[in-house]
């Protein structure tokens, strides 16, 4: 079974600074996908960024980027120039063929951006 671990329950960062959220996963699959989702206080789950395991290049979406280390099974999210609106729960998620492509979520990291 695939497991996703987020070891930082809570983090805080000052506005305009950079923060990195950690995620590790365990799988025996070779082809899979990794995601970061954001859940603000409204509780709407919003897809932030996506990484295919077969791609060596790290994904980037504006201020959000990942550091994907396949051998180490690590998938961290870097948020640059943090904004107050980035305050939210962040979930790392894994999907692969063995799970029927259902998402396996970590327990989340609560990020607080302070002025």
């Amino acid at each position: 079974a695939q497991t996703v671990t987020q070891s930082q329950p809570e983090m805080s960062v000052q506005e305009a600074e950079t923060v990195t959220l950690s995620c590790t996963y365990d799988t025996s699959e070779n082809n899979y996908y990794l995601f970061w989702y954001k859940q603000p206080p409204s509780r709407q789950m919003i897809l932030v960024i996506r990484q295919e395991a077969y791609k060596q290049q790290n994904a980037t979406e504006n201020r959000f980027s990942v550091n994907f280390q396949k051998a180490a099974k690590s998938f961290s999210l870097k948020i640059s120039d943090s904004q107050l609106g980035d305050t939210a729960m962040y979930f790392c998620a894994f999907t692969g063929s063995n799970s029927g492509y259902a998402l396996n979520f970590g327990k989340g990291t609560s990020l607080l951006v302070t002025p």
Partner: protein
Amino acid sequence: SQTIHQWPATLVQPVGSPLSLECTVEGTSNPNLYWYRQAAGRGLQLLFYSVGIGQISSEVPQNLSASRPQDRQFILSSKKLLLSDSGFYLCAWESSSYEQYFGPGTRLTVT
């Protein structure tokens, strides 16, 4: 563009009462659909997924059931709610590139 709707947004039901939560997707055909539950302060737990009309897979044994009567409609039901069924229920559809997009969710409180 694709949109996903869920209703109701909030529901308070007594123990032992029935439940019906509805999810509909617009702008896509024959998507894979998913029901997740999120307990307070925790991650998401997959409940059911469906790859087509009438095709339901259950991930967790419980008193909940799901049905997919139409291509873009996914329903979560229960005949008798338990206190432990309280939570935030999210429906999602999956794109061709395995990204899942979530609806706004239903907050269920069983009293």
